């Protein structure tokens, strides 16, 4: 099931008494503007930051809630599947960071490009990926988005403007600037968001690519998802300057509360405008991952449990939107709980379906090595037993 991109337009009576609230539909005046202040103001580096007043609608807030609830459920379900050994190898979970994915989507189109590293499941969903494609891929089945051949770190969706899904820390940054290069070359008025973590922020290739992006005015937006830990190493132990939004030096930057979907949306909209006119900009999203770096990292040897539960209590992105929805009387507790139940149901159904998806055919070992293989020979482990002509 794809995320909600369809906007329902039922207009309803705003003032209903509690006695007949059960008749109330989810959206009230769903498209009229609500203005919300972000949790904290933006901090700019060599740029005037945008206002902390963000325009949104009831519909948008509901879609944030729905989409983040789905992402959260998906990641938690992936944890269980990994422990049940249905997912193998590496599995890097995004729960806690959902606001970045949904806020960004709200500010851009599918013609803009997103590229990220290996913590990619939720970004994939945001770009139009389905739960079935996601779970099938995680379990290495043929209905996976990469036909089971990529795995957790290698989700892609070119049609949705999603370019992966990369395992080597930092590599996605020059790649993202390359997407922006192509966009500028084609003059298509679109931008690229290149996501990377605080661990990758020290990579040399970032600065090489950023220099060229700035020299050539590429519409590249570098987004540092600063969850404050590069695997087991806290940011202050890895970076002399953990003010990642300033690290672009001559490239302007913005520091954003990455747990606030509206702040993310505002920053991304601002960045897109900037990048189309003035070239690269850096966004630092202050965010947090509840899980460890990957499923083989407990995540508690280098952080205290108090810190983790503290963030969950004070800054959880879904809770933030829930409070807004309740405060603006857009939905009540029960309706929101129902949405979460629905998310759980969708995830469970997708997993059940994914489990039925078969493993890829053995012949898939030899497909997609090239686009055009010219019939060249390729070999299995025993070259005299298994050989194939590459299609």
């Amino acid at each position: 099931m794809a995320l909600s991109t369809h906007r329902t337009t039922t207009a309803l009576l705003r003032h209903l008494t509690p006695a007949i609230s059960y008749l109330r539909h989810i959206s009230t005046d769903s498209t009229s503007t609500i203005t919300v202040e972000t949790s904290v103001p933006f901090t700019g580096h060599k740029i005037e930051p945008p206002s902390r007043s963000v325009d949104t609608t009831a519909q948008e807030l509901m879609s944030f809630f729905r989409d983040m609830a789905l992402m959260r459920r998906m990641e938690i379900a992936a944890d269980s599947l990994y422990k049940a050994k249905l997912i193998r190898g590496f599995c890097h979970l995004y729960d806690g960071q959902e606001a970045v994915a949904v806020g960004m989507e709200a500010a851009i189109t599918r013609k803009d490009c997103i590229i990220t590293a290996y913590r990619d499941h939720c970004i994939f969903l945001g770009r139009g990926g389905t739960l079935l494609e996601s779970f099938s891929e995680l379990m290495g089945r043929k209905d996976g988005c990469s036909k089971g051949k990529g795995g957790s770190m290698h989700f892609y969706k070119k049609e949705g403007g999603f370019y992966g899904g990369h395992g080597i820390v930092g590599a996605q940054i020059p790649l993202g600037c390359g997407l922006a290069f192509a966009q500028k070359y084609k003059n298509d008025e679109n931008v690229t968001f290149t996501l990377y973590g605080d661990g990758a922020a020290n990579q040399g290739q970032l600065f090489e690519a950023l220099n060229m992006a700035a020299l050539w005015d590429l519409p590249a937006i570098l987004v540092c998802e600063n969850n404050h830990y590069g695997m087991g190493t806290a940011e202050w132990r890895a970076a002399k300057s953990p003010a990642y939004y300033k690290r672009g030096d001559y490239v302007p930057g913005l520091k954003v509360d990455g747990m606030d979907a509206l702040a993310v949306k505002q920053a991304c909209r601002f960045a897109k405008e900037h990048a189309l006119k003035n070239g690269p900009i850096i966004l630092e999203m202050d965010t947090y991952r509840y899980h460890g770096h990957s499923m083989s990292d407990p995540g508690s040897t280098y952080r205290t449990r108090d810190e983790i539960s503290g963030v969950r209590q004070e800054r959880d992105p879904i809770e933030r939107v829930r409070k807004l929805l309740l405060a603006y009387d857009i939905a009540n507790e029960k309706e929101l709980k129902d949405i979460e139940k629905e998310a759980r149901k969708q995830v469970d159904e997708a997993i059940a379906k994914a489990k039925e998806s078969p493993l890829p055919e053995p012949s898939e070992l030899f497909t997609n090595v090239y686009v055009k293989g010219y019939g060249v020979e390729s070999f299995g482990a025993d070259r005299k037993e298994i050989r194939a002509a590459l299609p």
Partner: protein
Amino acid sequence: MFGIISHKLAASTAGGSPGQPILRAAVLAMMSNYSTATKQIMVREALNSALDEEMAADPTVFLMGEEVGEYEGAYKVSKGLLRKYGPQRVVDTPITEAGFTGIGVGASCHGLRPIVEFMTFNFAMQAIDHIINSAAKTNYMSAGNINVPIVFRGPNGAAAGVGAQHSQCYAAWYSSCPGLKVLAPYSSEDARGLLKTAIRDPDPVVFLENELLYGESFPVSDEVLDSSFCLPIGKAKIEKEGKDVTITAFSRMVGYALKAAEILEKEDLEAEVINLRSIRPLDRSLINNSVRKTNRLVTVEEGFPQHGVGAEICASVVEENFNFLDAPVERISGADVPMPYAANLERLALPQVEDVVRAARRACYRSVPTA
């Protein structure tokens, strides 16, 4: 006593000279006798103890890499070392391979003996310029003025389900470069002996471990546990003697070759299993002597087939002992495709024991090749 003999052996054969064949054979024969073993240790422990002992013996030895200190090692190989030696000697680096590898090479030019750990050798590709151009070639370019006593170590090859970017075997790439020494341990004895030798060696050594072997236990004798225990570079080990077919392998594939040999035994085929231990320099004389005895050769490796380790071994045997070959040389390797994630495809992409058995049967003319 054995410890001292093997250390002297390491010193005398460091330059690749023939040394004393009789003494070497005697020591090797004694060292290959597992039945005197009294203890079992995991490869991870073996590596940890080697690092510990070498750091204790030589204050210029230090370890640097991602998560080696406070995290105690991504695979716990450096467990306890930060506590023991402090942050100047166990250095946690940012995730910046090109930078810290260059820093390591620079430090090794100026009196230190760094051990640079790569979380996997896939990430070392970010640093390969420094491994090749800064480390391997410097002694030559400076005519011996500057040497680079550095060790690059970490897991190499496939793990389980980690996909295309995390599963490549780099043995062939590094072994093609003169100036580097490339070692690949299999057992705990290999891990201890080869790592200690690597750390003491004055040249850059690429030390290819294997993630799936870290948790495997092997018997070790008291000699192996002695702090002076070293294994010579450039010498392979005959893990199992045989007369019908030679099977060469390194790292995890040695275990597969040994299992294949057990199966072949039941078919009255005695395989001689050679654990290469050293990919560069390759122990060509031991391999060739074995083929002169058995007349048949199967090479086994995890990596991609084209220009692989097996290809070089095949060329060596064909060049030196063509007339001793009674059958074409068989190569078992990883499949010629990027590593797929799906479990069934991954299995097809890597050598299995039955592949080695099948190739050995073909080499012994027990079956006709299908192709």
